[in-house]
């Protein structure tokens, strides 16, 4: 008997989908043919295994979703009970002493910072931001593309395309209210207009609503009415720090199409021990500013910002914890108090290509002139 037919029969038999007639025939076949019987036993075992596997896997994904939601609620609302529970009793007992010690350390740090600042203020900075200045040639190519687009989509009335002077990257952080993270140095390049462009080349106008020059994090709001609401972001954003040596990958727009790169966290601090940043070892180019840095589990760890000019592949990314601070500060502004990070993590356990497929729609070019 054909093996495929047999599996089909076993599967229907297990599900109880067999007609009584067929059931009888099937039982007879098993009785008369030991080989068939052996295969039925094997497949019954195996199908049970795979079904159990499927159920277990689904349940795990379901738990992960609930857990992420739950953990996110703690971050955003800062539930008191959770803080209390995680505090070791040690802290409660030695509150006063620790506070005293901490203030001493604080003073020492401050003095050290002042000294380091004085010593370093003479040095020239050896890092450069990763925004790509677009040249005339590319603009011309764009114009031609525009014309082609207009011809092919003649039924749609297209807004005139922006002649961009620079290109960088940004990624969605709140899909239902269209907030995007990028770098402050990117936004500052825009003297007149700022837009985002998706991987299909559609442009939407955007506005910078939050800038923090210290962390280099900027939040944009997509103001274009043509922009459609997207499903929740598939990556969660890591709240605590990551591990030295952790494998990461990034997606950004060092050219007019999305580019994938991979590497690892090579140091826990940035240029000249700047604690806002991680140091990564990964390829990155102009245009990568604002690219998300994602780990194997699909957690967002940071935002690409700059690279060292005199060393290849030394790249600096803003630690993701700064995103939470930026969002919290933005929420204090009345007009943007609806901003919230509500991921539906869907990347854990997927292979890389599947992860990229899920993420890439949430990554945009940030352009301006």
């Amino acid at each position: 008997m054909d093996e495929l037919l047999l599996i089909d029969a076993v599967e229907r038999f297990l599900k109880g989908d067999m007609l009584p007639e067929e059931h009888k025939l099937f039982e007879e076949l098993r009785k008369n043919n030991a080989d068939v019987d052996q295969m039925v036993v094997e497949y019954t075992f195996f199908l049970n295994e795979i079904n159990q596997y499927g159920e277990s896997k689904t349940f795990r994904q379901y738990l992960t979703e609930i857990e992420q939601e739950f953990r996110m609620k703690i971050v955003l609302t800062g539930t008191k009970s959770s803080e209390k529970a995680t505090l070791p009793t040690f802290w409660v007992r030695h509150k006063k002493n620790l506070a005293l010690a901490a203030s001493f350390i604080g003073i020492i740090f401050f003095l050290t910072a002042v000294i380091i600042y004085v010593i370093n203020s003479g040095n020239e900075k050896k890092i450069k931001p990763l925004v790509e200045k677009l040249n005339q040639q590319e603009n011309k190519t764009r114009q031609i593309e525009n014309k082609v687009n207009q011809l092919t989509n003649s039924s749609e009335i297209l807004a005139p395309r922006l002649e961009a002077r620079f290109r960088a990257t940004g990624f969605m952080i709140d899909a239902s209210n269209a907030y995007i993270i990028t770098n402050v140095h990117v936004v500052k390049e825009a003297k007149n207009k700022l837009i985002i462009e998706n991987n299909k080349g559609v442009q939407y106008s955007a506005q910078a609503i939050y800038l923090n020059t210290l962390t280099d994090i900027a939040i944009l709001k997509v103001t274009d009415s043509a922009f459609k609401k997207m499903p929740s972001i598939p990556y969660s954003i890591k709240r605590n720090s990551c591990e030295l040596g952790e494998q990461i990958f990034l997606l950004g727009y060092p050219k007019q199409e999305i580019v994938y790169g991979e590497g690892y966290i090579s140091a826990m601090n940035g240029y000249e021990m700047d604690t806002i940043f991680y140091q990564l070892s990964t390829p990155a180019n102009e245009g990568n500013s604002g690219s998300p840095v994602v780990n194997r589990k699909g957690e967002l760890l940071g935002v690409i910002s700059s690279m060292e000019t005199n060393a290849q592949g030394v790249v600096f990314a803003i630690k993701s914890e700064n995103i939470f601070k930026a969002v919290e500060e933005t929420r204090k502004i009345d007009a943007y108090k609806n901003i919230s990070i509500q991921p539906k993590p869907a990347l854990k356990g997927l292979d890389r290509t599947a992860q990229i497929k899920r993420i890439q729609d949430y990554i945009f070019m940030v352009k301006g002139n």
Partner: protein
Amino acid sequence: MVLTDSQFNMPESDYTLLEGLKNQDKRCIERIYRENYNMIQSLVINNNGDIDDAADIFQEAMIVLYEKSLLDNFKLSCRLKTFIYSICRRLWLKKLQKNHGRHIKVELLEDTIPVEEVVEDHEKKQENFKLMEKAMAKIGEPCRSLLNAYYIEKKPMQQIASDFGYTNADNAKTQKYKCLVRLKKIFFADYKNEK
């Protein structure tokens, strides 16, 4: 679940939560998280772990609890909180020993109820889960996505056919069975090696 005497001794709320978990009720699962997560987080963090370790351990304990809730003869002999604590403690201890060798000194606070058997049962079940995961990783595309769509996402064959670009459901089904034959070979090859 059979309502035996000990079940009646179990606090009403614990019973409801366990039933809810069995039915994968979101509200109940969230409540179990709310009422127990912080306890486990401080247990792990105070014993050489970080926040992510805590999340992993808690999820594992939820799976143990879920597996147990499906059994007809499962009786919770203590409060749910105590059970979760004991399972997590045991799981974390095992993980620490695995990572740091047997010499690590862990002072894991209070005494707990004995759960060695429960945890060992669970680990046996996990072995087959991991074998299947390994086999799925080895099988390659498009088989992985196809089997995933049918056995995990539980999509109907008709939809799978159109998603994957087969002309009809029967062709997709034939392909699925071919993939299944391959997966079975990989699975059993590893299965015999491990046992």
